[in-house]
């Protein structure tokens, strides 16, 4: 069997259920692939791993991948299992925030580490300065969890629909105590988890063939996970080496993730790509130059065309 290493963007959780299901159900094996899945974490830049040769294919957000491409690391999107984005900003109503107009004077928690581009694009669109002060917002580099909201250190925090939002509810805050802004609905949505490879490797027909089989099996895994969320959650739990995840939370996550993958057969929708690029370009500033010009050849349908045939 051909071996393929997949580097995830984050730790083992239902966000990546499709791959784990494909592994567990033998979809990869059926395609003649021996797949290794490397979990990620807060300190892992998948782009760096693939540049160092530690992975063949990575899961990444498009903004980060395009930024890396401009930095000289030619990543190419070969598939896009996530149709929608799950990134949201959620605020406590009691802080007086009801719409983006109320942001000035408040403190917002933002994820950095390559995840900050949508936020800056949005603020640029709203015309709100991010240096604090009464007319601007104070930005905090948010850690990995939702404590800043619960401890009232921030008025709004970044959440993923499928993870942190659930944690906020879990902690005992009810949805009606929250105001939530979805980046997609605010018009600054960006494509999230896609599959990326190094451009030059695509010239190798053998590698290309491996990727075709990989994407085919992965999508099969995703569709199976959508249909059997509880089983998928259990598979994720079984693959979590840290033993710290709870089944309940992964079931919740699987259900939410299924909503995001639902619209995708794996092929990237060029219109979504255009929207992401335009949003990114709208937010170009000296401090946050995700990209400064339109990227060329950052995606391909070659793989999905063959895989979905």
């Amino acid at each position: 069997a051909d071996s393929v290493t997949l580097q995830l963007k984050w730790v083992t959780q239902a966000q990546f259920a499709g791959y784990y299901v494909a592994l567990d159900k033998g979809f990869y094996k059926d395609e003649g692939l021996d797949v290794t899945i490397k979990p990620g974490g807060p300190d892992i830049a998948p782009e760096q791993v693939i540049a160092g040769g530690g992975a063949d294919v990575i899961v990444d957000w498009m903004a980060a991948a395009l930024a890396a491409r401009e930095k000289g690391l030619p990543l190419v999107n070969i598939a896009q299992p996530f149709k929608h984005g799950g990134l949201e900003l959620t605020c406590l109503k009691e802080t007086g925030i009801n719409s983006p107009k109320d942001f000035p004077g408040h403190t917002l928690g933002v994820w950095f580490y390559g995840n900050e581009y949508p936020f800056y694009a949005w603020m640029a669109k709203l015309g709100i300065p991010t240096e604090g002060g009464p007319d601007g917002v104070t930005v905090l580099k948010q850690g990995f969890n939702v404590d800043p909201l619960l401890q009232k250190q921030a008025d709004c925090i970044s959440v993923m629909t499928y993870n942190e939002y659930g944690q906020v509810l879990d902690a005992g805050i009810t949805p009606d105590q929250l105001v939530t802004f979805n980046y997609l609905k605010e018009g600054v949505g960006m494509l999230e988890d896609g599959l990326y490879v190094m451009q030059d490797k695509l010239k190798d027909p053998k590698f290309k063939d491996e990727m075709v089989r990989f994407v085919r099996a992965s999508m099969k895994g995703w569709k199976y996970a959508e249909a059997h969320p509880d089983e998928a959650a259990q598979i994720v739990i079984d693959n979590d080496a840290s033993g710290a995840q709870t089944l309940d939370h992964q079931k919740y996550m699987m259900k939410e993730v299924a909503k995001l993958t639902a619209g995708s057969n794996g092929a990237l929708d060029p219109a979504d790509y255009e929207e992401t690029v335009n949003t990114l370009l709208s937010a170009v500033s000296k401090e946050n130059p995700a990209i400064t010009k339109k990227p060329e050849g950052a995606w391909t349908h070659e793989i999905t065309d063959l895989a979905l045939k």
Partner: protein
Amino acid sequence: MIWLLVALVAWLGGWALNVRLSHSPAANTRAVGLLVPTIFGLTLLLVWQGLVRGLNVPMVILPAPTDIAVKIGASLPTLWTDFLQTFVKGALSGYVIGCGAAFVTAVLIDRSPFLQRGLLPIGNFVAALPIVGIAPILVMWFGFDWQSKAAVVVAMVFFPVLVNTVEGLNATDKMQRDLMATYSASYGQTLAKLRLPAAMPFVFNGLKIATTLALIGAIVAEFFGSPIKGMGFRISTEVGRLSLDMVWAEITVAALAGSAFYGIVAMIEKAVTFWHPSQRSRA
């Protein structure tokens, strides 16, 4: 290939030069004392440059020293802001508070063997708590700004200084203590005139270890939440953006600041413990 050769030659040449310098009659002068490590550092940089260029290491994995130097030159204001936030506000204040508290605690528990026997094992236990575990908790408790970083630093430096000070306060030899006993000196007099001076070499050991801990602590704490400035913030953010040159620029600043901090404490040590055999060159 050329670059690899340059690396090798640089290494051999630098080392040969240092061997000669350190055995020359001028070896004890201050200038040579500074020159030798500088040459060593320069050779290291040359080797690094040679390897990166020679092996075509991609920039997103490891930038060459020249790339880093260019970046430092271009980002001075940012580096300065980050330095103020992390070093001055976070590390320095935490260092002063932590070392001060540890010193006072050591003197306070010094009178009570009971407290010493009870506190020191637990102190060692607490000191073994990994900061990566403590930092998120302290960020949760003390907020995102420098206060939580200072708190992490306090937690990190407290026990090394405490343990060293307690050890130092017990470092007097029998005859020195007996002398005080024949004067029937009070506890306070013995402390001020014998035990504190005798403890200084140990205290400074703790203070020196604490300098490196303080900087690391302040930077690492920023990984777990921070305002949008600071050396740790910049490092973690720029890694995500693959601006490895900026990451190394910050690391350079950290290493310079840390070494200078260490050097200053070592200089104070030299002035205070001039009498200790390790500071005297009698040979």
